[in-house]
């Protein structure tokens, strides 16, 4: 065990820090759930890519830096430390890309990855359907092979950023007679194909952060299939594994929030200390954010040495989503009667980011496999308890 960075790692950190200091926009970008904000964030992805920072864990020949997971953690720490924008292409870069590298043909990698890294294609995910939420194997949207095209009919929903995104990846039922997780295929498709209708859905904050996608005889070339036909469930599980595992939420994000929470508490301490449970929640927030970082470093160290992520990855999702709720609830308690102000309110400068985060924290225990589903997985696969 050695809990110090090597000289090379320190140099790498210094390089990231320097680049971020010179390039992170001084003024916060507009939310990427608006047209204007989406364009700003796309431009930021392009800028990151110019510095070869948009996908540091990818191989060099694909535009990355072949960073290992420890380097990735260092990068993320500097990224969040610098207050850099949210990643509008995170579903592509962190979720689809690892799957593409594992299951994609060379041609597919060359076709999709460089454009993804540059922010030229922003990706949405298409798993959920009206009848298939937690129970993803209930997917019904059909993709029937006709010659060298799939013809897609049906509906996806809750697709994050699909309102403005360019491409979508997801699971479709290619064998109409199949049941459950059989007969599903992983398909990549551009969202501007004829027959696709996108209906934005407003989220809690009033912005169209996700959308329904309707398919009416949409023709997608068979070359857009990822992995073998009928093997989509396994390919998708790889994506879900990465998502639950490490890359979806790096610890730096929560450490930054915890740090901001301590600062908020310090500014309002005289008032806040009248309720001692607030101080306790602030300290717990810092401790849990550190614990999440330590746990991630430990997992990353194991993976760097050739280990694997097992079902214990399901504990991550629960831990960070509950931590995120704790931190934002605590901030709202400190802000008291000013917490409710909308961002445009003249006196909302301090509180608005907390309200925004508080709203988004409500979704954490729901998306990416609800926390109840994660607990089922822990109980059945980690502890070995019998299925219902």
């Amino acid at each position, binding site marked *: *065990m*050695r*809990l*110090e*960075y*090597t000289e090379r*790692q320190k140099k790498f*950190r210094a390089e990231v820090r320097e680049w971020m200091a010179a390039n992170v926009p001084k003024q916060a970008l507009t939310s990427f759930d608006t047209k204007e904000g989406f364009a700003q964030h796309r431009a930021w992805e392009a800028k990151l890519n110019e510095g070869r920072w948009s996908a540091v864990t990818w191989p060099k020949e694909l535009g990355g830096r072949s960073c290992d997971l*420890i380097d990735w953690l*260092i990068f*993320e*720490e*500097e990224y*969040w*430390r610098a207050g850099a924008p949210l990643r509008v292409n995170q579903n592509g870069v962190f979720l689809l890309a690892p799957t593409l590298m594992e299951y994609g043909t060379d041609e597919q990698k060359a076709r999709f990855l460089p454009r993804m890294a540059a922010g030229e294609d922003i990706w949405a995910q298409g798993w959920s359907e009206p009848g298939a939420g937690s129970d993803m194997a209930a997917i019904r949207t059909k993709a029937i092979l006709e010659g060298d095209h799939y013809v897609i009919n049906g509906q996806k929903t809750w697709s994050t950023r699909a309102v403005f995104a360019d491409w979508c990846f997801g699971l479709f039922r290619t064998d109409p007679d199949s049941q459950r997780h059989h007969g599903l295929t992983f398909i990549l498709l551009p969202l501007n194909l004829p027959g696709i209708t996108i209906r934005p859905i407003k989220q809690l904050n009033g912005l169209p952060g996700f959308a329904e996608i309707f398919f009416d005889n949409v023709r997608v070339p068979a070359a857009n299939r990822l992995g073998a036909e009928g093997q989509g469930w396994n390919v998708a599980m790889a994506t879900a594994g990465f998502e639950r595992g490490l890359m979806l939420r790096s*610890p*730096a994000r929560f*450490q*930054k929030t*915890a*740090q901001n929470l*301590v600062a908020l508490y*310090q500014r309002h301490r005289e008032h806040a200390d009248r309720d001692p449970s607030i*101080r*306790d929640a*602030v*300290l717990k927030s*810092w*401790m*849990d954010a*550190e*614990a999440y*970082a*330590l*746990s991630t*470093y*430990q997992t*990353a*160290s*194991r993976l*760097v*040495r050739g280990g694997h992520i097992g079902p*214990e990855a399901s*504990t991550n999702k*629960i*831990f960070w989503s509950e931590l995120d709720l704790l931190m934002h609830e605590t901030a709202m308690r400190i802000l008291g009667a000013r917490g409710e102000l909308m961002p445009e309110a003249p006196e909302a400068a301090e509180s608005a980011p907390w309200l925004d985060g508080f709203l988004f924290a409500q979704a954490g225990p729901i998306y990416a496999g609800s926390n*109840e589903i*994660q*607990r*089922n997985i*822990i*109980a*059945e696969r*980690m*502890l*070995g*308890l*019998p*299925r*219902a």
Partner: protein
Amino acid sequence: MDFTFTEDQLSLSDAIHKFLMVEAAPELLREIWETESGRSAEMRAKLADQGLTALSVPEAYGGMGLGDLDWVLIQQELGYYAIPDSLTATAYLAVYLSKALPEDSKLKAHWLPKIADGSARIAVGHPINPFVADAANASLLLLWHADELHALRPSEATLTLNPSIDSSRRLYRVQWTPTDKTRVCGAEQGRELWQGVINRAGVAISAQLLGLAQRMLDLGTDYAAQRKQFGKPIGSFQAVKHHLADVAVKIEFARPVVQRAAQSLATGHPRASLHVSHARLVAGEAARLAARKSIQVHGAMGYTWEADLQMFMKRAWALDSTWGDAIFHKARIAEFVLAEGAALGPAETFTH
């Protein structure tokens, strides 16, 4: 940056795990409760045979010369099996104190070899604890007085037993008079040494609490898989599953905190005290939750003297407030986090 243990470290703790599985069965622990000292010469001999009494004694004194990081995995096992022995006070804390003394110190030359071979039992007392555990059957008491370190025989003190809810513990109120003769080290060096003792006890207890939490989770899981109601194992009911899954989450995120604290002691990290207090708090939380959830899953059976769960719950409840309760440890966290210009936020986890 490498947050992993070596093969040697892992195989040693694995060997101890397998050894204690056979040699420290709950029935045996119950027999040891019934003895006056609460300790067993056979158990001690077995631990010594495994090299545990010699673990961090320097090689020059007949030991293995290992350190804080080696201890942490072993302590997890001692917790998992609720080992009733003054091993930690003797072979970890007293060794740490002795090692810091000058070469010509009698404590060192006389006691280190005896600790290594398993023949000595040493009790360590500091006012952070109202009582001294295992004072009566100790060969030597190492006691705090005004930041000094004193050494005396139990016969030179008045000991009053205060029974604990944990049937394996033997707590004593110790009354004694410090003299020049008992003083082993002055306050100046002593202050730092006692800080080191509190931190090492802290890592040992955190690791034991982790082990205890894991044991209680395992007991709850086994019970839930076997016990049937409504024609099914109760472990197939989701409410029961989720109780146990919550414990697994707590353990998963306490473990790295505890192991990092051990490494901070091993490397003399300037924030070691902070790391230890963090470890104590999260490990305590994991163990308390494990106790609560495991007893719930056991139903009335969990509320009995007969069910083994009690020995792990009670050990956890007792240890959780020893060598600094949550009030003490949270104050150390607050001191760091709420200081002006504290190094918080991303990129500070491993800074000095």
